[in-house]
């Protein structure tokens, strides 16, 4: 079909102008993180002004660019501590959290979307409810359960379990909402063709829900990737620490090494960006008109 671009699609140039400006503003604080990381120093950014500053002096002061560029912070972060090992631990924990979280959430989300059963509303609500109780007081009860009862201190499994359950409620709700938008007729026709419920779920529903699965995967990953206090509390061996724990060594207490922290933060966000790059194609490949018509 031929489309008249002039009337239906917005003009691209203004969009680009807007996006460039907005993106620059949005990454401005991030640029400061880069500036601190590459400065070779340790102090948090403070505008350095000469006496009686002019417009240009002020402009220079607010431009995030280090006076000298140095990689020393990155080098120190990677060599002073077993940071690579900690990133690896984080990767394993976050990846397993993603797999487990997405698995548990897709099945539950599917049931909540497709079946009507007693306790359905209550069940769905209870997932939401679990997010409502503030986590600050949960540390000791969780410690008792994971380390005391289950004996999972200093293990990956303990952390994965906790992170996955933290991520589940949002994932279930998100997926349930998305499953709701997938037309029932698709399943009906498959059922007529003799497909089992499990087959329908895996072959039809999951592929169609790719954007939502991508979102939940990213979310679960982030849950496991950035958590600090539980990881620091459950792990009793330095080799088992995760990257956020390693990062926090640079701050807290009397002195703060912001240069190291910034460099570490950048290293730590690289996998997240990579994952997002990988998930992007699923994020923008949803239902097509053809699929609905079946």
């Amino acid at each position, binding site marked *: 079909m031929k489309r008249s671009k002039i009337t239906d699609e917005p003009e691209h140039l203004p969009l680009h102008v807007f996006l460039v400006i907005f993106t620059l503003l949005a990454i401005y604080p991030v640029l400061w993180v880069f500036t601190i990381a590459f400065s070779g*120093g*340790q*102090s*948090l*950014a*403070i505008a*350095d*002004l*000469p*006496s*009686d500053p002019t417009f240009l002096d002020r402009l220079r002061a607010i431009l995030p660019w280090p006076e000298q560029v140095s990689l020393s912070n990155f080098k120190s972060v990677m060599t*002073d501590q077993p940071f690579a090992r900690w990133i690896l631990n984080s990767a394993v924990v976050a990846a397993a959290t993603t797999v487990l979280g997405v698995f548990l959430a897709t099945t539950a989300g599917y049931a909540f979307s497709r079946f009507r059963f007693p306790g359905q509303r209550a069940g769905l609500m209870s997932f939401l409810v679990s997010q409502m109780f503030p986590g600050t007081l949960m*540390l*000791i009860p969780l*410690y*008792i359960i994971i*380390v*005391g009862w289950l004996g999972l*201190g200093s293990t990956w499994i303990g952390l994965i379990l906790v992170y996955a359950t933290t991520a589940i409620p949002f994932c279930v709700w998100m997926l349930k909402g998305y499953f709701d938008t997938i037309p029932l007729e698709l399943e009906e026709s498959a059922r007529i063709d003799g497909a089992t419920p499990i087959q329908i779920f895996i072959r039809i529903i999951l592929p169609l829900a790719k954007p939502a699965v991508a979102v939940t995967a990213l979310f679960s990953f982030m849950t496991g990737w950035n958590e*600090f*206090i539980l990881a*620091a*509390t459950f792990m*009793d*061996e*330095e080799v088992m620490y995760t990257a956020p*724990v390693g990062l*926090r*060594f*640079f*701050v*807290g*207490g*009397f*002195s*703060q*090494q*912001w240069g190291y922290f910034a460099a570490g933060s950048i290293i730590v966000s690289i996998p997240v960006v990579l994952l997002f790059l990988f998930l992007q194609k699923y994020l923008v490949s949803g239902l097509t008109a053809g699929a609905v018509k079946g």
Partner: protein
Amino acid sequence: MQTRRIAIVAGTLLIALILVPLGALAQTELVVWHAYRGGEKTAFEKAVAEYNKAKGGSIKVSTLAVPYDAYADKITAAVPRGKGPDIFIYAQDRLGGWIEAGNTIEPLDFFLEDEITSRFLPTTMEAMTYQDTVYGLPLNYKVITQIYNKKLVSSPPKTSGELVANAQKMTDATVGKFGLAYAYNDFYYHAALMNAFGGGVFGADGKPTMNSAANVKALEYLMMWADETKILPAEPSTALITSLFNEGKAGIVFSGPWFLGEIAAGVDFGLAPLPTIDEAGSPMRPWMTVEGVYIAAPSQHKDEAYDFAKFLTDKPAGVIMAIEGRQTPANTAVYDDAKVAADPILQAFRKQVEVAIPMPNKAEMTMVWSPATTAMNIIIKKNATPKAAMEEAQKEVVQRIAALRK
């Protein structure tokens, strides 16, 4: 005959087999938790390695560094449940809370010999004492002192008169230059002035005294510095102070050993004791925090743990931590060591600590911070007089303590 010999050989072997694992079993493993990092961590681990070597395998100490932000919670969660270390190192500010919570820190009175207690600065021992019982051996202390830029300040001021006079010459707020910069809005830093005026947060009977005349006077004095003589910058965050000092825009900074690591390479700095406050007739007396070596109450190896604590607070380990870790040990003998004696920075802190006052280790201390911070802020913003603000803080602290000790 033959069979007997075989029997003997077999018997010997058997005994050897039994004895070997017994020998291996005899090694005691101790776990130590700490929150050191960087150079402090390296030096601490070196001292631990020395101990392991000295014990020749009978005791093996292993260490675990915990990020400071998670450290207290980790101890609170793990130690009372018997899952924690044998020894941990922490400042005295949480001591009271952990003792009241129970099953966390082992009292040491039973072990303590006079020759051990006399090792330390008496004030550091005081920091380790709660309700007349000693709970830890003091390892290192931290105090704030006067740090000055040698290029800007030829000789550090000894009195508040000199300080203000010099600082006023240097200060030019319009270009962001200040004679003195320190986190005066932080109650911890302000305590140096407070103590100079004879103030404090708890009286002899343990009751809060936030609104005491001395405390109010100290705050009025601070307001004179900040408001009348205007030698101090506004909103003095630690990042700001560091950057002012490094850029030569602050002549003098009041800060602790942690600040030294943040001083930029080119800055020529010196240390001197905090000045005497003429109006109070007393030197500024900063609060001192003391890192104590504590034995975990559920530990199965308390004797070995105490032995290790003694080693760690002895002179040789102290010298390692002072020279290589840039820490300031509580053991006075450390400062007689030739290398330490020649170190102007370590000696400067040693001198400063003479007038320092241990920060209270009562559990109620945590209830002071938030009302005190609020009071400091409204006083500095001039939204309330020191008297009114401290009356309010006192009310708040009394009410919180009453609610806690219901």
